[in-house]
């Protein structure tokens, strides 16, 4: 019960000012470090999706998610383990053009890591690779040990559950139905 592992919290919210603060203070109060964070509009218009990862145990993540779910502007919050999701992070690597060309094994490297070149000019090359943390890290390690990396950035995790639809759409449909029923009763 008390073994720590990486949990992914997925939150759907209204798009209002100050929501990120409302969510992060719930982590802060329990001394939980947010490993990664990614926020963007969801597939449903006007609704934002937060994807947050954190190392903790199941008891704690369950309580945290309930506290998040309770906030007025949050539509739905839930948590998943890695096995239940498809997930990716994206990483960008800035390298010296001169060293990159001198290296000679560029094509093999790009193929090996399934990376691609986003930008190339006389000063620098920017590679892009998406994947799990250890995969983007492996490319970073190899480049660091050989030609060196000028700049490196990795995004927060984006994740999709393996079940067939976004659970939120069912929930919204259900809520819409209830609202209509309520309005009919009132009329």
């Amino acid at each position, binding site marked *: 019960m008390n073994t720590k592992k990486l949990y992914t919290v997925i939150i759907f*919210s*209204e798009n209002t*000012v*100050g929501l990120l*603060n*409302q969510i992060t*203070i719930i982590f802060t*109060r329990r001394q939980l470090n947010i490993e990664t964070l990614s926020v963007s509009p969801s597939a449903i218009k006007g609704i934002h999706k937060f994807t947050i990862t954190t190392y903790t145990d199941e008891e704690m993540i*369950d*309580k945290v998610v*309930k*506290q998040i*779910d*309770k906030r*007025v*502007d*949050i*539509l739905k919050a839930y948590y998943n383990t890695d096995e239940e999701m498809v997930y990716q992070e994206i990483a960008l690597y800035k390298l010296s053009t001169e060293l990159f060309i001198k290296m000679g094994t560029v094509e093999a490297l790009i193929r090996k890591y399934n990376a691609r070149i986003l930008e190339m000019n006389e000063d620098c090359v920017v590679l892009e690779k998406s994947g799990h943390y250890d995969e983007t890290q492996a490319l970073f390690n190899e480049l660091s040990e050989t030609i060196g990396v000028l700049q490196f950035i990795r995004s927060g995790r984006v994740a999709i559950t393996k079940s067939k639809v976004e659970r939120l759409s069912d929930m*919204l449909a259900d*809520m819409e139905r209830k*609202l209509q029923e*309520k309005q009919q009763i009132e009329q």
Partner: protein
Amino acid sequence: MERISGSEALLRSLIAEGVDTIFGYPGGAVIPVYDSLYDYKDKIKHVLVRHEQGATHAAQGYARVSGKVGVTLVTSGPGATNTLTGIADAMMDSTPLVVITGQVASPLLGTDAFQEIDVIGITQPITKWAYQIRRAEDIAWAVSRAFYIASTGRPGPVVLDFAKDAQVGKVDFEYKHVDYIRSYQPEPEINLDRIAQAAALINQAQKPFCLVGQGVILGHAEKELLEFLTKNDIPAAATTLGLSAMPSDFPLNKGMLGMHGNVGPNRKTNECDVLIAVGMRFDDRVTGDLKTYAKQAKVIHLDIDNSEIGKNVPVDVKVLGNAKHTLPRITELLETRKREAWNAEFEPDAQEEFEKVIKHELQPESGYLKMGEVIRKVSEATNNDAVLVTDVGQNQMMGVRYFKYNHTRSVVTSGGLGTMGFGLPAAIGAKFGAPERTVCFFTGDGGLQMTLQELGTIMQENLDVKIILLNNNFLGMVRQWQELFFHERYSFTEMVNPDFVSIAKAYGIAAREVQKREELDEAIQEMVNHKGAYLLVADVERFEMVYPMVPAGATVTNIIMGDQK
């Protein structure tokens, strides 16, 4: 539709929400609202407090006794920060409040303008909802939403931060009540399977025991609770905030839970076979050590807040919903039972507590006045019909232990946050919330002096609040801990106090000091018969202790009775 100022739109919105009383204090960033209020004096009663903390506590007292939303109006910056303690207190104790703070004009936001503070950022952790109104067009929507959120589901405080340009801006005013927010479902759907499971567990139980929390009062489920308990003959005890949900003389009411609760309820928590928690949150002052808490029992938890269920105590049957709707559904499935033997098991504990603690508190033969005897006599002098308001500390624990209740919504005390200084302004609010009832406020010399300035509010409003100061010239509860757990090292708990009677008189408040037991009854009668505010200073035993006591973090059955000395 009419074109009016934002300030007027705010007042019209408040009136549309049924607000007739607000507690406030003017200042630079809220002057336009106060200017509009000048024209609405006949519709909205504004109570001018002496400090913004007092405004929030008064609104809390008002809300707790009336069941309505308490409203506070203050200015920006320090006005807003002074309300924080009350907002946090309301959050912990699920009190519906709408706190309106003035704010600098929106172009100045984020510039460190005079009296600008990030109210939303500061209050988000301690509110149910916090919203900044930057445009006059948003006022009606925001106010309506604020009242809906504050008063529904598990109630709580809402902050509206009202920028000055929105106050002076013009708007075509039209009010529409909000009763639906798609991301907020205040009343969860009732799961009938869980209802059946709960009823089956109770029907099979030999020794069921019910813990009654404030959720019963907030959900207006007092009648439903008594029917539930009576049908299956289930003994019950209340948390501090759940007190008065059951009348004191209700036969199945076995008293109070927790650190200074009654012996029987605490012991039986660890003897019962089914524990039914209704609208309570297993606070550490109730449970003590969770590792040894009610391990033998199956736990049924009824609450409206999903995040409370399983938070502290693992639950066997979770019944989500308003107790007003869940309890009767369970009652319907209960067998009519008589549990005479089980109920009788509370008797020896009650006897023991009476012999070792209560007798000395209520019927002392000599020595200084005891807090308990003063409290019980005041309760009886008001026929147990009064509203009890307390401050925090020994006066509070003695107050809730020895006052008696005939009616619901009779206890106003700071439970979760334990805010010293809460009492005096809360008593003012309580009197406005229930003007027909007698309000008895018990306080200590420490807590009274934290918000003493509100005597000015009592004077200005000519308010009939009975103040009973249990004076021991000590910060008594901390001193008690120092005596018990810190080798009697009384580090900064002794107080040199002013002449409280003179202070009251300076405010035009009748006052009297009583030291002798022979004078106590007569002094209490004088206070009760007096028309208007009254301060009774009772000089009580300096080294008095509140017993019984379950030390912090100890097992609930590990009870200090204080009879060893």
